[in-house]
């Protein structure tokens, strides 16, 4: 599962085996097999585009991506991360997509001397007491996104909301995150099995409960089934508030059924800033599909590394590199960006709505800003060591 980027990088390595200063190896840990592989591809392609637009050299170092597939299995991920830090001696690891993988690889990666930068997973474990100087998250703390939806529901005057999530940790976290900011009444909480196929029974309950809106978190195929069946059941006049359910990774399958449904995030493809316009255009030209937040955050991570390595003058001094990552400004695709005390971003969050573009493809688009320069709920517990 190794992919070598840039013949130039390879040539440079062959010519100068001892002098590694001119080259940079970045370990990419992402999911490339199984039903969630679409998300893993987004992450890999986003980072690869960032390297390409930096001329194949992050911070002036010829960059080689060592891409490994974590198979969404913590044990597999740990073995492959050990190989990255021990055999390949990578100074930086970028990944993964899923929080349970992040929990498994953080210690082997950091103990092995690497700096871990997660462009998607942002579990609370590493945001509060477990924060770490060599661990960065460039997306968000997971709870923030659900809290954005709760706040948006308040502003839009929804008093009675029906909550439906899968019956596992992330699902229960989503419901808790939403309820933390939502001030109205949760008329019913439904927990469905993670392998649920058909939502007809739950849709009938929603219709019977007559809520002002529903809140749901249904990642991957679950969300596709729900969105299409929700539309088919004629419930689309009840606002569909969701997180990680309708995004550019699922929209090619849900198509028109998802138009008008809501999501929450720190980024959307239509954000109007020069960095984002350049990113979206180049991404679609290179890979032929619309980028989702997985790709955007990975792209940002590459651009951040480019700026930080330049500022630190290479990757040999780890202290200097960590400090540079924390403080070097870079042009993020989501506009203003900075790290908080726990190495998680302090940034704005938006309410998004699914729209059909003029070219017939689908994307989420910003409706309004919900939180400004939002700090996650765990940052105050962090004593950085």
């Amino acid at each position, binding site marked *: 599962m190794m992919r070598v980027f840039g013949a130039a990088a390879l040539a440079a390595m062959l010519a100068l085996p001892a002098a590694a200063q001119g080259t940079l190896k970045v370990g990419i840990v992402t999911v490339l*097999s*199984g*039903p969630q*592989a*679409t998300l893993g*591809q987004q992450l890999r392609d986003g980072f690869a585009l960032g390297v390409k637009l930096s001329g194949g050299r992050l911070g002036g170092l010829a960059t080689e991506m060592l891409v490994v597939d974590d198979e969404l299995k913590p044990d597999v991920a740990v073995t492959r991360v050990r190989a990255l830090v021990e055999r390949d001696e990578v100074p930086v690891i970028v990944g993964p997509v899923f929080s349970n993988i992040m929990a498994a690889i953080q210690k082997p990666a950091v103990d092995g001397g690497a700096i871990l930068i997660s462009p998607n997973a942002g579990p609370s474990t590493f945001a509060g007491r477990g924060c770490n100087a060599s661990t960065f998250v460039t997306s968000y703390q997971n709870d923030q996104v659900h809290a954005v939806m709760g706040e948006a529901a308040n502003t839009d005057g929804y008093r009675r909301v029906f909550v439906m999530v899968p*019956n596992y940790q992330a699902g229960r976290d989503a419901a808790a995150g939403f309820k933390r900011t939502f001030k109205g009444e949760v008329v019913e*909480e*439904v*927990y*469905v*099995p993670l*392998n649920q*196929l*058909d939502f*007809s*029974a*739950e*849709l*009938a*309950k*929603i*219709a*019977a409960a*007559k809520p002002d809106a529903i809140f749901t978190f249904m990642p*991957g*195929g679950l969300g*596709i*089934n729900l969105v*299409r*069946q929700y539309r*088919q*059941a*004629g*419930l689309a*006049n*009840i606002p569909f508030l969701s997180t990680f359910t309708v995004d550019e*990774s*699922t929209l*090619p*399958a*849900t*198509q028109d059924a998802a138009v008008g449904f809501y999501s929450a995030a720190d980024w959307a493809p239509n954000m109007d800033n020069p960095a984002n316009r350049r990113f979206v255009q180049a991404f679609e030209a290179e890979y032929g599909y619309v980028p989702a937040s997985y790709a955007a955050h990975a792209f940002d991570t590459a651009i951040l590394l480019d700026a930080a390595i330049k500022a630190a003058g290479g990757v040999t001094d780890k202290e200097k590199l960590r400090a540079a990552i924390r403080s070097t400004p870079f042009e993020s695709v989501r506009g203003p960006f900075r790290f908080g005390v726990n190495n998680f971003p302090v940034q704005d969050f938006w309410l998004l709505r699914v729209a059909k573009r003029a070219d017939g493809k689908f994307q989420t688009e910003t409706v309004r800003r919900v939180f400004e320069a939002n700090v996650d709920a765990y940052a105050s517990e962090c004593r950085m060591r």
Partner: protein
Amino acid sequence: MSTGLLLVQILNGLQLGVLLFLIAAGLTLVFGVMDFINLAHGVQYMLGAYLAAWFATLTGGFWGALALALPAALAIGLVLEVLVFRHLYDRDHLDQVLATFGVILFLNQGVRAVFGAAPMQVPTPEALSGGFEIIPRLIYPHYRLAILAAGLLVALGLYLVINRTRVGMLIRAGASNAAMVSALGVNIGLLFTLVFGVGAMLAGFAGVMAAPILSVEPGMGDNLLILTFVVIVIGGIGSIRGAFVGALLVGLADTLGRSFATDIARGILSASAATKVGPAMASMTIYLLMAAVLVARPAGLFPAKRG
């Protein structure tokens, strides 16, 4: 709970039941007639859905996809039988489980290589895109009624073929005592191939019918396969009638459990405990049903009579 809601949930349960029946019919025949455990049966369902998605983009509609996907599913079933499964009939069950599990891995990864990891979709046929409003604000789509009708028609057709035709008689005889049927001069190999092909096509048909309401993605058949095994164990191995009754029971039990378990738990427990216990109870319903049936009738409800 209103009668309208109950009616909708019963319809939902029956519709899940007929979908399960379409898959279980083939599985129970293959298991019963050939004594062959085919874990790869769920993959046939997935292939049906993928073929539908592919042909839908080629022909631009559901009906064209249906017309092309059925013979294609039959052909794939026959090819798999000749290439792989035929060589496993005389092996013991563990070998069969291993080999057919390998086929699952191979084909799940295969569709990913061919069609990509991203889920695909099939449009609902235009003529069936409307629905009835049974309870206020909830539309019961015509398409779901069409699934119900199609499943019942297939059940009727299978019933007539198995009980009223010569081929059906041979299949019933094969399920009771395959060696004796073979000794009487019947080409049992050809009969097996036929049963296998039709079973694969029925699973493919279930996949085509499910494609407009479910997401078409690698591994979509794996969860359904477990339910299908529950169905044939409840119904009795080798019995189409058993598969039909078992499928409807499982469909109803699963749907009604999901709909009302939390409400029932709320009557006994506090609200927060009920939201934890309810979903757990709902996931257990069908397995409790299976346990109850096995206690009362260890061979299932309608077992094929063994000679």
